[in-house]
């Protein structure tokens, strides 16, 4: 039972977004989301296509997490940020390879794939996009 406290089906469903930044784009109003939504949150259209979102963006705002939810304790302190990708899509993501006091609004960041959560000794290891300051 211990191995399954993280929902395995939810983990599996989220893989396209977490591994490949596959999001949704409304064919009617152009609004983009991550992950893709059944209904466009802006215009209500159900005419949504799956797209690969750009892997670079800028930090819009951020928060430092000192008291983490279950499964994230070992990673504290870590930074979660609202990131605006190059096409304007806004997503939430953890930042990595950066100290909390180095993060700035407007900081240019790029996607990497990292471990986010581990379900004990016997459960799944969840991986997801995170963003780091751009290398070049």
């Amino acid at each position: 039972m211990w191995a399954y406290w993280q929902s395995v089906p939810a983990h599996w469903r989220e893989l396209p977004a977490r591994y490949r930044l596959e999001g949704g784009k409304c064919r009617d109003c152009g609004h983009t989301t991550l992950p893709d939504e059944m209904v466009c949150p802006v215009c209500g259209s159900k005419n949504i296509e799956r797209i690969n979102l750009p892997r670079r963006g800028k930090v819009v705002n951020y928060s430092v997490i000192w008291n983490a939810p279950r499964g994230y304790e070992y990673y504290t302190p870590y930074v979660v940020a609202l990131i605006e990708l190059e096409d304007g899509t806004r997503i939430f993501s953890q930042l990595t390879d950066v100290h909390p006091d180095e993060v700035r609004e407007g900081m240019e960041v790029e996607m990497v794939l990292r471990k986010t959560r581990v379900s004990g000794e016997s459960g799944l290891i969840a991986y997801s996009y995170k963003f780091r300051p751009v290398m070049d």
Partner: protein
Amino acid sequence: MRADRKVGIVGWGVYVPKWRIKSEELARGWGRDWNRYAAGIMVEEKSVPGIDEDTFTIAYEASVNALKRARLDASLLRAVYVGTESKPYAVKTTATMLIDALGAGGNGRLTTGADYEFACKAGTEAMQSVIGLVGSGMIEYGLAVGADTAQGAPGDALEYTAAAGGAAYIIGPAERSVAIIEASLSHVTDTPDFWRRQHERYPAHTRAFTGEPAYFKHIVTAARELMSLMGTGPEDYDYAVFHQPNGKYPLRVGTRLGFTPDKLKPGLITPYIGNTYSGSALVGLAAVLDQAKPGQRILVVSFGSGAGSDAFHIEVGDGIEEVQGLAPKTLDYVSRKEYVDYTTYARYRRMIRMLHDFSAY
């Protein structure tokens, strides 16, 4: 061994975590004087995987860099093999995650995938398999990765060198390649120099077998047999890259085979990042390809404990200079660094356990 159809390297990529720990700091943690070991190990600092990094995340970024240089869509890959001795799962193939993250095999994921284990030569063993598949015409493109977050027991001599990093190679037909793999050769025996039993966190090693009967015998045999097959000598190569468990052995084995230090140093990366195990020789090869010129020849010989060596004769082709700058180079990752102390290192390597940590493992 030579394939029916000529094959080569279409693209290559590396990844090394940004964190480093100095050997002096590792020695300090155990009350030892690094100066007593420095000349024997010749590794001044090593890479440390971040708290959220493992073999899969390392393999992923190296593979993305290889795809950029190959100018290839991942959907065209029909084989993805990951060589490692630090699999994230004991049973669940790292390649399954890498295939899905890259989108290999197209939307139908029509590709083979497997993890290879052969201590430090698992990556070149993966490469041999892909060469065989492309060379026989079964597939057009395949990906071979060598990556590790190597384990060295706290206080053990291996702790000075066990590092993290990896390299990825896209192998394809010669006409799409920037470096041709003219031939390869493998040599394997049962040599008890190093092993890790099921459920053990750290490997065991036997000092008496480490040098001559294991590392030197297998590399020298594979290198000499391959050069004999090709009718070449050390003077015919511009670069030679050997497995790098420390900074000393590759220089010594290279000299023994007749290579001058100037041919060895461009591919000698371990002194700056430590031994990346399955990535070791392949990261060295990547550093050479980063600066190689058309017409140059490279000899690569890996070594894996247990024990065996894979040797490759590679000829650099036209077009390599066009792709060298398409992804970050090995030295870009080597120079991107930030030092951590022993406490942070122990935490990042999960050697310290929290009282209330549901993610501990």
